């Protein structure tokens, strides 16, 4: 796999399916991949029993990109992958907006499923992103990760 960045941080809403299709057309060699596994995280309008009206995603510019690249690289070393992609939103996010996309391409499904899960779980525990929820009354920082 060529040495390039597979990660993007976006301030604007994005369409995960279009991004997947575009990346696949531009970066993957047709006929070589037999499995594509993807995960999309979307903003809910509820959390911990409250209505959530908006969310602000803060990050640490520079460190975020570095850790996303690191996580992709680890997945490439651990499994036999053709390629992987991570796209993550930051800034003001509305309910139903996609927040994160992870995609893995491999020859066979086992690697794709396992590596896609790995990207998501590692991202949640290591990449420096923080969520602040807007509620009906006020704001709150999210302290708890939902169980996988």
């Amino acid at each position, binding site marked *: 796999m060529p040495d390039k960045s597979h990660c993007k941080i976006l301030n604007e809403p994005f369409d995960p399916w279009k991004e997947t299709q575009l990346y696949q057309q531009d970066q993957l060699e047709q006929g070589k991949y037999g499995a594509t596994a993807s995960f999309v995280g979307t903003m809910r309008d509820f959390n911990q029993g409250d209505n959530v009206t908006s969310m602000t995603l*803060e990050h*640490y510019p*520079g*460190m975020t990109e*570095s850790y996303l690249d690191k996580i992709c690289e680890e997945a490439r070393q651990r499994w036999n992958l053709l390629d992987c992609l991570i796209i993550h939103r930051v800034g003001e996010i509305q309910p139903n907006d996609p927040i994160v996309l992870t995609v893995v391409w491999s020859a066979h499904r086992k690697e794709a499923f396992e590596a896609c899960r790995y990207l998501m779980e590692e*991202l*949640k*525990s*290591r*990449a*420096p*992103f*923080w*969520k*602040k929820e807007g509620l009906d009354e006020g704001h709150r*920082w*999210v*302290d*708890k*990760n939902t169980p996988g």
Partner: protein
Amino acid sequence: MSITVKFFARLREQVGHAELTLDSAGDVQSAWDQATQNMDMPDNTLCAINMEYVDASTRVQDGDEVAFFPPVTGGSHAR
């Protein structure tokens, strides 16, 4: 040369600034003490030097960027 100290998310709000500069610091804990005027560091605080996770006892070098932040995405941290 100097040391840049950054705070993110809830910690930025608690400390009251996003970034400041120190002339020197022995280790990460002392950078925190100087930058926050000896506030207690919350137990779950994560520390980084030059965008790599470190412990609070790690030595700080001239020119380093030291960052403090809460657990990421609200999750538990596994380095």
